[in-house]
C-alpha cells in the first residue's frame, strides 16, 4: 500500500505529459484522456480513503530515504479527504469545460489542468515544508495559466494582481521556511514538531515569528483578512470551470494551516502550543464580516459568488481558530460542503451569464433567459446551500461550528458575526435572485444562448453533494470526527513519519 500514497501525485504529473503529447491526436483525444485520468484519480482517492480509515499513517519515502533526510508523502484521513474533494471538484469542472467548449479558447487547457491537480494533490500529500513550497509554486504556475486562459482585458488585469500577490507570498514563504530551518535545523514537518517541542527558550521568539510569517503566507492562499483583496477580481474574471476548480485553492491555505501549524505548534509544542489560534479566529471573524458586506455590494453574480467563497473560507477559519476536536470536525464537514457547492455555483453563474446574452451576469434587468425555471430553481437551491439556510448542508455545518463554540469566551461575538453575516448574505442573494429571474424585460433584445444540457449535469452533480451531506450526515460527521481526532493526535503523526523504515532491497 506504500505506492498508493505516491499515486495521486504521480498520476496527474504523468497525465500532464501524456495529455501534452496527445495534442497531436487532436482535442478530442486530449479531452478523453484528461477525463479518464481524472476518473482514475477519483477511484484512487476513494481507495486511499478506505486505506486511511484503518487509522494507520501511510508514509511513502521518496527515493527510500528515511524521514528527516528524505522527502516524505503522508497519507492520513485528512489528506485522503482533501484529495477526494479535489478530484470530485475537478471532475465537475472538467466536464463543464468540455461541455461548453471553453477548453477550445486557448491551447494547453488540459495540460495545465493536470498540472494544477499535480500541485494540489502534492500540497495535500507532502510532509515536508520546503516541498510544500515547491508544490505551492507548481499549483500557482498552473493556476496562472488557467486563470488567463481565453484572455481578455479584465482577466489580464486581475491576473497581473494575482501573480504579483502570489509571488510576494512565495518570497515570504521562503523567508519563513528559512528562518524555521535556521532555528530548528530541519524541514520535515514531523521532525520540526519534535524539535520545536524541545527548542531552547531563547529560540522560541524566532520560531514563533517564523510561524506567524508562515501564517501570513497561508493566509494569502486562504484569502484571510487583510490578504483577500486579490480574490474577488481574480475569481470573477476567469472562466467558469477554472473558478470552480479554484474553489479548492483557498482550502489549500486552510489545509496548510491545519497541517503545518496544527502539527508543528500543536499540543506538544510547550510554550508555543496553539499560540496562533487567536489570530486565526479573530481574522476569520473580520474576514466574515467584510465578506458579507462584499456579497451585498457585488455588481455581478460571479463577483457575488466569489465573495460567498470568501465568506465560507472565513467560516472555516473561525472553525480552525476555535481549536477543539469538535470544532475541527465541524470545519471539515463545512469544508466538504462549501468546496463542492461553491464550485457548482461558479458554473451556474456562468450558465446564467450565457443565458442573458450580452448583459451577462450584471445585476440589471434583462430578457428572460431560456429555461429560466430550471436555472432559477438551481439558483435557489445553490443560494440556500451557500447562505446556510435549512434544510441543506450549509446550515448543518454552521450549526455544528456554532455548537462547538459554546464554551468559548468569545461565543457571543462569534455568534453575532456568523448570524449577522448569514442574514446579510441571505438578503443579498434574495435581491440578486429576484433581479435575475423576476424583473425581466419583454423580449426585444437578442436572447442569450439556449441552455446547455450537458453542462447542466456538472452543476447538478456538484450541487447534489449538499443533499447527500444532509442525508448521510451521521456517517459523514462520524468520519469528520475521526479526521479531527487524528489531526489533533499529532504525536502519532510524528511517530509514524519518523519511524517508518526504509524498504530493504531484495537480493
Amino acid at each position, binding site marked *: 500500500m506504500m505506492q498508493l500514497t505516491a499515486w495521486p501525485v504521480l498520476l496527474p504529473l504523468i497525465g500532464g505529459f501524456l495529455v501534452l503529447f496527445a495534442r497531436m491526436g487532436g482535442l478530442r483525444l486530449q479531452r478523453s484522456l484528461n477525463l479518464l485520468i481524472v476518473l482514475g484519480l477519483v477511484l484512487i482517492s476513494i481507495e486511499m480513503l478506505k486505506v486511511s480509515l484503518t487509522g494507520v499513517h501511510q508514509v511513502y519515502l521518496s527515493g527510500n530515504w528515511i524521514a528527516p533526510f528524505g522527502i516524505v508523502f503522508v497519507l492520513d484521513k485528512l489528506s485522503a479527504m482533501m484529495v477526494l474533494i479535489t478530484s470530485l471538484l475537478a471532475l465537475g469542472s472538467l466536464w463543464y469545460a468540455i461541455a461548453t467548449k471553453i477548453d477550445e479558447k486557448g491551447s494547453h487547457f488540459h495540460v495545465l489542468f493536470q498540472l494544477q491537480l499535480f500541485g494540489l494533490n502534492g500540497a495535500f500529500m507532502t510532509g515536508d515544508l*520546503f516541498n510544500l513550497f515547491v508544490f505551492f*509554486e507548481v499549483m500557482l504556475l498552473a493556476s496562472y495559466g488557467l486563470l488567463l486562459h481565453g*484572455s481578455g*482585458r479584465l482577466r489580464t488585469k486581475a491576473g497581473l494582481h494575482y*501573480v504579483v500577490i502570489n509571488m510576494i507570498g512565495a518570497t515570504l514563504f*521562503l523567508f519563513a521556511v528559512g528562518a524555521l*530551518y535556521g532555528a530548528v535545523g530541519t*524541514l520535515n514537518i514531523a521532525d520540526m514538531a519534535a524539535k520545536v517541542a524541545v527548542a531552547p527558550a531563547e529560540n522560541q521568539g524566532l520560531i514563533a515569528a517564523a510561524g506567524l510569517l508562515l501564517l501570513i503566507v497561508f493566509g494569502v492562499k486562504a484569502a484571510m483578512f487583510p490578504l483577500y483583496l486579490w480574490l474577488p477580481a481574480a475569481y470573477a474574471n476567469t472562466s467558469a470551470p477554472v473558478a470552480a476548480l479554484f474553489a479548492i485553492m483557498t482550502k489549500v491555505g486552510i489545509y496548510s494551516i491545519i497541517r503545518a501549524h496544527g502539527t508543528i505548534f500543536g499540543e506538544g509544542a510547550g510554550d508555543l502550543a496553539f499560540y496562533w489560534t487567536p489570530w486565526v479566529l479573530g481574522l476569520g471573524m473580520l474576514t466574515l464580516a467584510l465578506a458579507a458586506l462584499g456579497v451585498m455590494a457585488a455588481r455581478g453574480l460571479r463577483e457575488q459568488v466569489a465573495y460567498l467563497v470568501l465568506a465560507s473560507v472565513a467560516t472555516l477559519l473561525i472553525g480552525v481558530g476555535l481549536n477543539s476536536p469538535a470544532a475541527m470536525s465541524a470545519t471539515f464537514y463545512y469544508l466538504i460542503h462549501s468546496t463542492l457547492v461553491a464550485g457548482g455555483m461558479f458554473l451556474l453563474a456562468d450558465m446564467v451569464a450565457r443565458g442573458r446574452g450580452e448583459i451577462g451576469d450584471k445585476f440589471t434587468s434583462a430578457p428572460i433567459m431560456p429555461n429560466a425555471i430550471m436555472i432559477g430553481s438551481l439558483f435557489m437551491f445553490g443560494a440556500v446551500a451557500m447562505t446556510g439556510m435549512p434544510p441543506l448542508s450549509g446550515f448543518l455545518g454552521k450549526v455544528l461550528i456554532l455548537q462547538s463554540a459554546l464554551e468559548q469566551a468569545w461565543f457571543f461575538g462569534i455568534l453575532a458575526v456568523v448570524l449577522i453575516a448569514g442574514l446579510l448574505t441571505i438578503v443579498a442573494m434574495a435581491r440578486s435572485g429576484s433581479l435575475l429571474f423576476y424583473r425581466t424585460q419583454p423580449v426585444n433584445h437578442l436572447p442569450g444562448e439556449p441552455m446547455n444540457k450537458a453542462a447542466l449535469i456538472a452543476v447538478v452533480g456538484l450541487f447534489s453533494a449538499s443533499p447527500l451531506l444532509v442525508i448521510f450526515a451521521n456517517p459523514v460527521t462520524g468520519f469528520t470526527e475521526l479526521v479531527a481526532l487524528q489531526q489533533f493526535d499529532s504525536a502519532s503523526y510524528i511517530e509514524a513519519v519518523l519511524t517508518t523504515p526504509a524498504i530493504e532491497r531484495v537480493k
Partner: protein
Amino acid sequence: MELLIALVIGVMTTAGVYLTLRARTFPVVLGLTMLAYAVNVFLFTMGRLTIGMPAVIDPTAAGYGDPLPQALVLTAIVIAFGMTAFLIVLALKARGELGNDHVDGLHLAANEAPYEKLDQIKANQQSPNNIMQQSNQEVKP
C-alpha cells in the same frame, strides 16, 4: 562577515519592497527580482556562515558546511527565474491590452490614451465628416 551579509539582505529587501510598491509594472518586476535575491541569500545563510568548508564529502576536510540550504537555494532560484519570466511576459501582455503599464491599467497620464481610444481617434481623423465631432470630443488633453 555576518554584518555585511545582514546589511546586504536588509538593503535588498528594502529596495525590493519599495520597488514592488511602485505603481508601474516594470519597477514591480524589478522589485520582485530584488526580493527573490534577498531571500536566496537569506536561505543560504540559514545553514550558518562558514569559510573553506566543503558541502559534500571530502576526506581531507576538517568539517562540513550545511549542504541543505544550498539545495534549497538552487530550487528557489529556478522557481524565482521561472516566475519572473512569466511575470515579464504577463506585464507585456497587460501593457498591450490595458494600454499602459500601470498595475491597475487605469490611471492615464495627461498625454496617454488607451488603445481603443487611439483607434477611435485615428478612425475619426480618416473620415472628414467626423472632424467636427472629434474636435468637440477630444479637446481635452
